[in-house]
Protein backbone atom coordinates (compact mmCIF):
# COMPACT_ATOMS: atom_id res chain seq x y z
CA UNK A 1 0.00 0.00 0.00
CA UNK A 2 1.46 3.40 -0.94
CA UNK A 3 1.87 6.21 1.55
CA UNK A 4 -0.54 8.32 -0.51
CA UNK A 5 -3.31 5.72 -0.36
CA UNK A 6 -2.64 5.17 3.33
CA UNK A 7 -2.87 8.89 3.98
CA UNK A 8 -6.28 8.96 2.30
CA UNK A 9 -7.62 6.36 4.71
CA UNK A 10 -9.87 7.82 7.40
CA UNK A 11 -8.01 5.81 10.04
CA UNK A 12 -4.65 7.30 9.15
CA UNK A 13 -6.16 10.76 8.88
CA UNK A 14 -7.27 10.46 12.51
CA UNK A 15 -3.81 9.40 13.63
CA UNK A 16 -2.10 12.19 11.71
CA UNK A 17 -4.52 14.79 13.09
CA UNK A 18 -3.76 13.55 16.61
CA UNK A 19 -0.03 13.71 15.86
CA UNK A 20 -0.35 17.30 14.60
CA UNK A 21 -1.82 18.32 18.00
CA UNK A 22 0.38 16.08 20.14
CA UNK A 23 2.08 17.72 23.08
CA UNK A 24 5.49 16.08 22.83
CA UNK A 25 6.97 15.29 26.23
CA UNK A 26 9.97 17.64 26.35
CA UNK A 27 13.60 16.65 26.75
CA UNK A 28 14.53 16.17 30.37
CA UNK A 29 11.12 14.64 31.10
CA UNK A 30 10.83 12.05 28.32
CA UNK A 31 11.88 8.43 28.62
CA UNK A 32 11.99 6.55 25.34
CA UNK A 33 11.72 3.06 26.79
CA UNK A 34 8.92 1.57 24.67
CA UNK A 35 10.09 -0.52 21.73
CA UNK A 36 8.29 -0.94 18.43
CA UNK A 37 6.43 -4.06 19.54
CA UNK A 38 5.24 -2.27 22.68
CA UNK A 39 4.17 0.74 20.63
CA UNK A 40 2.15 -1.42 18.24
CA UNK A 41 0.58 -3.20 21.22
CA UNK A 42 -0.55 0.12 22.65
CA UNK A 43 -1.60 1.90 19.45
CA UNK A 44 -3.14 -1.11 17.62
CA UNK A 45 -2.68 0.81 14.41
CA UNK A 46 -0.63 -1.66 12.40
CA UNK A 47 2.99 -1.25 11.26
CA UNK A 48 2.16 0.73 8.09
CA UNK A 49 0.37 3.44 10.09
CA UNK A 50 3.14 3.49 12.70
CA UNK A 51 5.70 3.99 9.92
CA UNK A 52 3.62 6.82 8.49
CA UNK A 53 3.45 8.44 11.93
CA UNK A 54 7.22 8.20 12.31
CA UNK A 55 7.71 9.77 8.88
CA UNK A 56 5.34 12.58 9.92
CA UNK A 57 7.36 13.33 13.05
CA UNK A 58 6.33 11.02 15.88
CA UNK A 59 9.37 11.44 18.14
CA UNK A 60 11.49 8.34 18.62
CA UNK A 61 15.09 7.25 18.80
CA UNK A 62 16.89 4.24 17.38
CA UNK A 63 17.34 2.79 13.92
CA UNK A 64 14.41 2.34 11.52
CA UNK A 65 12.60 -0.84 12.51
CA UNK A 66 14.03 -0.69 16.05
CA UNK A 67 12.63 2.62 17.20
CA UNK A 68 11.98 3.50 20.83
CA UNK A 69 9.19 5.81 21.99
CA UNK A 70 8.07 7.72 25.07
CA UNK A 71 5.13 6.00 26.78
CA UNK A 72 3.24 9.25 27.45
CA UNK A 73 3.63 10.39 23.82
CA UNK A 74 2.08 7.12 22.67
CA UNK A 75 -0.75 7.26 25.21
CA UNK A 76 -1.72 10.83 24.35
CA UNK A 77 -1.44 10.20 20.61
CA UNK A 78 -3.71 7.17 20.82
CA UNK A 79 -6.24 8.86 23.08
CA UNK A 80 -7.01 11.51 20.45
CA UNK A 81 -6.62 9.27 17.37
CA UNK A 82 -10.31 8.45 17.08
CA UNK A 83 -9.33 4.89 16.14
CA UNK A 84 -11.54 3.42 18.85
CA UNK A 85 -9.25 0.42 18.92
CA UNK A 86 -6.11 1.62 20.70
CA UNK A 87 -5.52 0.40 24.24
CA UNK A 88 -5.72 3.87 25.84
CA UNK A 89 -9.06 4.66 24.17
CA UNK A 90 -10.59 1.31 25.09
CA UNK A 91 -9.23 1.29 28.63
CA UNK A 92 -10.42 4.81 29.38
CA UNK A 93 -13.85 4.15 27.85
CA UNK A 94 -14.25 1.06 30.01
CA UNK A 95 -12.95 2.66 33.18
CA UNK A 96 -15.28 5.64 32.81
CA UNK A 97 -18.50 3.71 32.22
CA UNK A 98 -19.66 4.75 35.68
CA UNK A 99 -19.93 8.34 34.42
CA UNK A 100 -23.00 7.29 32.43
CA UNK A 101 -24.90 6.00 35.45
CA UNK A 102 -27.52 7.86 37.52
CA UNK A 103 -26.15 10.80 39.54
CA UNK A 104 -26.95 9.21 42.91
CA UNK A 105 -24.46 6.43 42.09
CA UNK A 106 -21.67 9.03 42.18
CA UNK A 107 -22.69 10.12 45.68
CA UNK A 108 -23.82 7.00 47.56
CA UNK A 109 -21.43 5.40 50.07
CA UNK A 110 -19.10 2.89 48.41
CA UNK A 111 -16.77 0.36 50.03
CA UNK A 112 -13.30 -0.26 48.61
CA UNK A 113 -10.08 -2.03 49.30
CA UNK A 114 -7.05 -0.12 48.05
CA UNK A 115 -3.67 -1.82 47.88
CA UNK A 116 -0.55 0.21 47.12
CA UNK A 117 2.83 -1.45 46.56
CA UNK A 118 6.07 0.50 46.33
CA UNK A 119 9.30 -0.92 44.94
CA UNK A 120 12.75 0.49 44.35
CA UNK A 121 13.39 1.47 40.71
CA UNK A 122 17.06 0.50 40.89
CA UNK A 123 17.82 -2.36 38.49
CA UNK A 124 20.59 -3.70 40.70
CA UNK A 125 18.47 -3.85 43.83
CA UNK A 126 17.55 -1.47 46.59
CA UNK A 127 20.48 0.30 48.25
CA UNK A 128 21.44 0.68 51.89
CA UNK A 129 19.14 2.08 54.57
CA UNK A 130 15.95 2.23 52.49
CA UNK A 131 13.13 4.53 53.60
CA UNK A 132 9.59 4.72 52.26
CA UNK A 133 6.90 7.34 52.50
CA UNK A 134 3.38 6.99 51.12
CA UNK A 135 0.59 9.54 51.34
CA UNK A 136 -2.06 8.18 53.67
CA UNK A 137 -5.46 7.73 52.01
CA UNK A 138 -7.86 9.94 53.98
CA UNK A 139 -11.47 9.30 52.91
CA UNK A 140 -12.46 11.23 56.06
CA UNK A 141 -11.64 14.46 54.22
CA UNK A 142 -14.71 13.83 52.05
CA UNK A 143 -17.00 12.38 54.70
CA UNK A 144 -15.89 8.77 54.28
CA UNK A 145 -14.02 6.57 56.74
CA UNK A 146 -11.00 4.34 57.06
CA UNK A 147 -12.04 0.90 58.28
CA UNK A 148 -8.65 -0.75 58.51
CA UNK A 149 -5.12 0.13 57.42
CA UNK A 150 -2.41 -2.54 57.21
CA UNK A 151 1.20 -2.25 56.12
CA UNK A 152 3.66 -4.77 54.77
CA UNK A 153 5.96 -5.08 56.57
CA UNK A 154 3.92 -4.38 59.68
CA UNK A 155 5.08 -1.78 62.13
CA UNK A 156 5.21 1.22 59.81
CA UNK A 157 4.59 4.64 61.30
CA UNK A 158 1.08 5.80 60.47
CA UNK A 159 0.97 9.58 60.61
CA UNK A 160 -1.84 11.98 59.79
CA UNK A 161 -0.47 12.71 56.31
CA UNK A 162 1.95 9.89 55.53
CA UNK A 163 2.70 6.28 56.27
CA UNK A 164 6.45 5.79 56.60
CA UNK A 165 8.73 2.80 56.98
CA UNK A 166 12.41 2.01 56.88
CA UNK A 167 14.73 -0.94 56.46
CA UNK A 168 12.67 -3.08 54.09
CA UNK A 169 13.41 -3.58 50.36
CA UNK A 170 9.77 -2.87 49.44
CA UNK A 171 6.70 -1.43 51.09
CA UNK A 172 2.97 -2.05 50.85
CA UNK A 173 -0.19 -0.53 52.22
CA UNK A 174 -3.71 -2.00 52.18
CA UNK A 175 -6.66 0.10 53.25
CA UNK A 176 -10.28 -0.96 53.66
CA UNK A 177 -12.32 2.18 53.41
CA UNK A 178 -15.63 3.77 52.57
CA UNK A 179 -16.09 6.82 50.37
CA UNK A 180 -19.13 8.98 49.91
CA UNK A 181 -20.09 11.95 47.81
CA UNK A 182 -22.11 15.07 48.38
CA UNK A 183 -23.68 17.34 45.82
CA UNK A 184 -22.67 20.99 46.08
CA UNK A 185 -22.69 23.92 43.69
CA UNK A 186 -20.40 26.87 43.22
CA UNK A 187 -22.13 30.06 44.33
CA UNK A 188 -19.76 33.05 44.37
CA UNK A 189 -19.97 34.78 40.95
CA UNK A 190 -16.21 35.51 40.97
CA UNK A 191 -15.46 31.86 41.64
CA UNK A 192 -17.84 30.68 38.93
CA UNK A 193 -16.20 33.11 36.53
CA UNK A 194 -12.73 31.68 37.19
CA UNK A 195 -13.95 28.13 36.68
CA UNK A 196 -16.13 28.96 33.66
CA UNK A 197 -13.22 30.73 32.00
CA UNK A 198 -11.17 27.57 32.28
CA UNK A 199 -13.96 25.23 31.24
CA UNK A 200 -14.70 27.15 28.04
CA UNK A 201 -11.06 27.06 26.96
CA UNK A 202 -9.73 24.74 24.27
CA UNK A 203 -7.98 22.26 26.56
CA UNK A 204 -7.05 18.64 26.15
CA UNK A 205 -6.35 16.29 29.01
CA UNK A 206 -3.03 14.48 28.65
CA UNK A 207 -0.88 12.17 30.73
CA UNK A 208 2.71 13.11 31.52
CA UNK A 209 5.30 12.72 34.30
CA UNK A 210 4.30 14.32 37.59
CA UNK A 211 7.46 16.43 37.68
CA UNK A 212 6.39 18.02 34.38
CA UNK A 213 2.80 18.49 35.54
CA UNK A 214 4.17 20.41 38.52
CA UNK A 215 5.46 23.03 36.03
CA UNK A 216 2.22 24.62 34.72
CA UNK A 217 4.31 27.22 32.87
CA UNK A 218 5.77 24.47 30.66
CA UNK A 219 2.47 22.73 30.04
CA UNK A 220 -0.60 24.98 29.99
CA UNK A 221 0.59 27.33 27.19
CA UNK A 222 0.40 24.29 24.88
CA UNK A 223 -3.32 23.76 25.49
CA UNK A 224 -2.84 20.58 27.46
CA UNK A 225 -4.34 20.27 30.88
CA UNK A 226 -3.04 17.60 33.25
CA UNK A 227 -4.60 17.55 36.69
CA UNK A 228 -1.65 18.82 38.74
CA UNK A 229 -0.96 21.80 36.44
CA UNK A 230 -4.62 22.79 36.27
CA UNK A 231 -5.28 22.55 39.99
CA UNK A 232 -2.15 24.60 40.80
CA UNK A 233 -3.10 27.31 38.31
CA UNK A 234 -6.74 27.47 39.47
CA UNK A 235 -5.65 27.64 43.12
CA UNK A 236 -3.45 30.64 42.25
CA UNK A 237 -6.35 32.34 40.49
CA UNK A 238 -8.77 31.68 43.35
CA UNK A 239 -6.30 32.88 45.98
CA UNK A 240 -5.65 36.04 43.94
CA UNK A 241 -9.41 36.67 43.90
CA UNK A 242 -9.52 36.39 47.70
CA UNK A 243 -10.78 32.83 48.11
CA UNK A 244 -9.26 30.36 50.52
CA UNK A 245 -8.07 27.63 48.18
CA UNK A 246 -5.83 24.58 48.21
CA UNK A 247 -4.94 21.74 45.89
CA UNK A 248 -5.17 18.13 46.91
CA UNK A 249 -3.71 14.90 45.60
CA UNK A 250 -5.44 11.56 45.67
CA UNK A 251 -6.61 8.69 43.54
CA UNK A 252 -9.47 7.92 41.17
CA UNK A 253 -11.01 4.69 42.44
CA UNK A 254 -11.65 2.17 39.69
CA UNK A 255 -10.04 -0.31 37.32
CA UNK A 256 -7.15 1.85 36.25
CA UNK A 257 -4.33 3.10 38.42
CA UNK A 258 -4.94 6.83 38.13
CA UNK A 259 -3.40 9.23 40.62
CA UNK A 260 -5.22 12.54 40.54
CA UNK A 261 -5.25 16.13 41.80
CA UNK A 262 -7.96 18.75 42.15
CA UNK A 263 -8.81 22.16 43.60
CA UNK A 264 -10.67 22.76 46.87
CA UNK A 265 -11.97 26.23 47.58
CA UNK A 266 -14.10 27.82 50.30
CA UNK A 267 -17.14 29.36 48.64
CA UNK A 268 -19.11 32.43 49.80
CA UNK A 269 -21.47 30.14 51.74
CA UNK A 270 -18.53 28.92 53.82
CA UNK A 271 -18.65 25.43 52.31
CA UNK A 272 -15.64 23.70 50.83
CA UNK A 273 -16.22 23.00 47.14
CA UNK A 274 -14.29 20.47 45.09
CA UNK A 275 -13.49 21.80 41.63
CA UNK A 276 -12.32 19.08 39.29
CA UNK A 277 -12.28 20.26 35.68
CA UNK A 278 -10.18 17.28 34.66
CA UNK A 279 -12.90 14.86 35.71
CA UNK A 280 -15.27 16.88 33.55
CA UNK A 281 -12.84 16.74 30.64
CA UNK A 282 -12.29 13.02 31.11
CA UNK A 283 -16.00 12.49 30.59
CA UNK A 284 -15.41 13.52 26.96
CA UNK A 285 -13.67 10.14 26.60
CA UNK A 286 -16.53 8.18 28.15
CA UNK A 287 -19.30 6.61 26.08
CA UNK A 288 -22.62 8.36 26.82
CA UNK A 289 -21.68 10.19 30.02
CA UNK A 290 -24.68 11.39 32.02
CA UNK A 291 -25.61 14.98 31.07
CA UNK A 292 -25.32 16.07 34.72
CA UNK A 293 -21.80 14.78 35.14
CA UNK A 294 -19.87 17.88 34.13
CA UNK A 295 -21.86 20.06 36.54
CA UNK A 296 -21.21 17.64 39.41
CA UNK A 297 -17.47 18.01 38.86
CA UNK A 298 -17.68 21.72 39.63
CA UNK A 299 -18.46 21.88 43.33
CA UNK A 300 -19.43 18.37 44.46
CA UNK A 301 -17.53 15.56 46.11
CA UNK A 302 -17.88 12.27 44.25
CA UNK A 303 -17.44 8.84 45.75
CA UNK A 304 -14.80 7.89 43.16
CA UNK A 305 -12.26 10.31 44.58
CA UNK A 306 -9.99 9.16 47.38
CA UNK A 307 -8.23 12.14 48.98
CA UNK A 308 -4.83 12.33 50.62
CA UNK A 309 -3.57 15.25 52.70
CA UNK A 310 -0.92 16.11 50.10
CA UNK A 311 -1.12 19.17 47.91
CA UNK A 312 -0.90 18.77 44.12
CA UNK A 313 2.83 19.47 43.95
CA UNK A 314 3.71 17.01 46.71
CA UNK A 315 4.37 13.48 45.39
CA UNK A 316 2.25 10.66 46.76
CA UNK A 317 5.20 8.34 47.27
CA UNK A 318 8.88 8.81 48.04
CA UNK A 319 11.80 6.46 48.52
CA UNK A 320 15.44 6.81 49.48
CA UNK A 321 18.19 4.22 49.50
CA UNK A 322 21.95 4.40 49.40
CA UNK A 323 21.59 8.03 50.44
CA UNK A 324 19.77 8.91 47.19
CA UNK A 325 16.15 9.99 46.79
CA UNK A 326 14.35 8.04 44.05
CA UNK A 327 10.85 7.95 42.54
CA UNK A 328 9.57 4.51 43.58
CA UNK A 329 7.74 2.17 41.25
CA UNK A 330 4.08 2.10 42.25
CA UNK A 331 1.35 -0.45 41.78
CA UNK A 332 -2.16 0.36 42.92
CA UNK A 333 -4.82 -2.36 43.01
CA UNK A 334 -8.36 -1.26 43.77
CA UNK A 335 -11.13 -3.71 44.61
CA UNK A 336 -14.66 -3.11 45.73
CA UNK A 337 -15.36 -3.77 49.40
CA UNK A 338 -18.32 -5.98 48.57
CA UNK A 339 -16.51 -9.21 49.37
CA UNK A 340 -15.36 -7.90 52.74
CA UNK A 341 -18.89 -6.66 53.53
CA UNK A 342 -20.37 -10.02 52.46
CA UNK A 343 -17.88 -11.86 54.68
CA UNK A 344 -18.71 -9.56 57.58
CA UNK A 345 -22.44 -10.08 57.04
CA UNK A 346 -21.97 -13.86 56.96
CA UNK A 347 -19.90 -13.75 60.16
CA UNK A 348 -22.50 -11.56 61.82
CA UNK A 349 -25.31 -13.96 60.85
CA UNK A 350 -23.32 -16.90 62.18
CA UNK A 351 -22.65 -15.00 65.41
CA UNK A 352 -26.38 -14.27 65.80
CA UNK A 353 -27.21 -17.96 65.23
CA UNK A 354 -24.65 -18.99 67.87
CA UNK A 355 -26.10 -16.51 70.34
CA UNK A 356 -29.63 -17.80 69.63
CA UNK A 357 -28.59 -21.41 70.36
Amino acid at each position, binding site marked *: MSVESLRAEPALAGWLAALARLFVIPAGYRDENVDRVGALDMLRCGPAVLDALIRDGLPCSGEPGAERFDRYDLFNLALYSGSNSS*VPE*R*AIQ*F*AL*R*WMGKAPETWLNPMAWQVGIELACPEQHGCGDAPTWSMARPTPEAFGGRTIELRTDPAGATIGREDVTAQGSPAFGLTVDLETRGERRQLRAPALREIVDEFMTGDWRWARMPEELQARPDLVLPHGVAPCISVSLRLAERCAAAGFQARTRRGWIL*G*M*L*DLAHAWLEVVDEDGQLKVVDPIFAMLSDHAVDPHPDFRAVCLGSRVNRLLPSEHSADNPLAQHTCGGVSRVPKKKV*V*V*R*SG*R*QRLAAQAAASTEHAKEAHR
Partner: protein
Amino acid sequence: MTEDDKVGRRVREIIGEMCPLGEREARSTDRVTDDLGYDSVGIVELAMVLEQEFELQPIDEEQAIDIVTVGDVEELVRLATAAA
Protein backbone atom coordinates in the same frame (compact mmCIF):
# COMPACT_ATOMS: atom_id res chain seq x y z
CA MET B 1 -21.50 -30.84 27.86
CA THR B 2 -23.89 -28.29 29.39
CA GLU B 3 -24.16 -24.72 28.18
CA ASP B 4 -22.40 -23.60 31.38
CA ASP B 5 -19.50 -25.96 30.63
CA LYS B 6 -19.22 -24.59 27.09
CA VAL B 7 -19.17 -21.02 28.35
CA GLY B 8 -16.51 -21.84 30.93
CA ARG B 9 -14.34 -23.66 28.40
CA ARG B 10 -14.54 -20.81 25.88
CA VAL B 11 -13.75 -18.23 28.60
CA ARG B 12 -10.67 -20.22 29.61
CA GLU B 13 -9.60 -20.49 25.96
CA ILE B 14 -9.85 -16.73 25.48
CA ILE B 15 -8.02 -15.96 28.72
CA GLY B 16 -5.28 -18.38 27.71
CA GLU B 17 -5.01 -16.95 24.19
CA MET B 18 -4.78 -13.36 25.47
CA CYS B 19 -2.39 -14.18 28.33
CA PRO B 20 0.25 -11.41 28.58
CA LEU B 21 2.85 -14.05 29.47
CA GLY B 22 2.22 -15.83 26.16
CA GLU B 23 -0.53 -18.14 24.99
CA ARG B 24 -1.16 -20.97 27.43
CA GLU B 25 -3.82 -23.19 28.95
CA ALA B 26 -5.73 -21.33 31.63
CA ARG B 27 -7.33 -23.20 34.54
CA SER B 28 -10.25 -22.03 36.63
CA THR B 29 -8.06 -21.79 39.70
CA ASP B 30 -5.40 -19.62 38.02
CA ARG B 31 -5.19 -16.09 39.39
CA VAL B 32 -5.65 -13.69 36.51
CA THR B 33 -3.11 -11.14 37.77
CA ASP B 34 -0.64 -13.12 39.86
CA ASP B 35 -0.46 -16.31 37.77
CA LEU B 36 -1.30 -15.12 34.25
CA GLY B 37 0.24 -11.65 34.29
CA TYR B 38 -2.83 -9.59 33.42
CA ASP B 39 -2.66 -5.98 34.63
CA SER B 40 -5.71 -3.72 34.97
CA VAL B 41 -5.54 -2.67 31.31
CA GLY B 42 -5.27 -6.33 30.33
CA ILE B 43 -8.41 -7.13 32.32
CA VAL B 44 -10.22 -4.26 30.61
CA GLU B 45 -9.20 -5.66 27.22
CA LEU B 46 -10.33 -9.11 28.29
CA ALA B 47 -13.71 -7.81 29.47
CA MET B 48 -14.30 -6.09 26.14
CA VAL B 49 -13.37 -9.20 24.16
CA LEU B 50 -15.74 -11.28 26.30
CA GLU B 51 -18.55 -8.79 25.75
CA GLN B 52 -18.05 -9.14 22.01
CA GLU B 53 -17.62 -12.93 22.00
CA PHE B 54 -20.71 -13.65 24.11
CA GLU B 55 -22.73 -10.60 22.94
CA LEU B 56 -23.05 -9.42 26.54
CA GLN B 57 -24.42 -6.18 27.87
CA PRO B 58 -21.51 -3.93 28.91
CA ILE B 59 -19.76 -5.53 31.90
CA ASP B 60 -19.96 -3.34 34.96
CA GLU B 61 -16.58 -2.01 36.03
CA GLU B 62 -17.57 -2.70 39.63
CA GLN B 63 -17.85 -6.40 38.73
CA ALA B 64 -14.64 -6.52 36.73
CA ILE B 65 -12.74 -4.88 39.56
CA ASP B 66 -13.26 -7.89 41.84
CA ILE B 67 -11.97 -10.51 39.42
CA VAL B 68 -9.25 -12.61 41.04
CA THR B 69 -9.35 -16.03 39.38
CA VAL B 70 -10.22 -17.39 35.95
CA GLY B 71 -13.17 -19.04 37.68
CA ASP B 72 -14.43 -15.57 38.71
CA VAL B 73 -14.41 -14.56 35.04
CA GLU B 74 -16.27 -17.73 34.07
CA GLU B 75 -18.91 -17.02 36.72
CA LEU B 76 -19.25 -13.41 35.62
CA VAL B 77 -19.84 -14.45 32.02
CA ARG B 78 -22.25 -17.24 33.01
CA LEU B 79 -24.35 -14.79 35.01
CA ALA B 80 -24.26 -12.23 32.21
CA THR B 81 -25.27 -14.76 29.56
CA ALA B 82 -28.06 -16.07 31.79
CA ALA B 83 -29.36 -12.53 32.27
CA ALA B 84 -29.28 -11.77 28.53
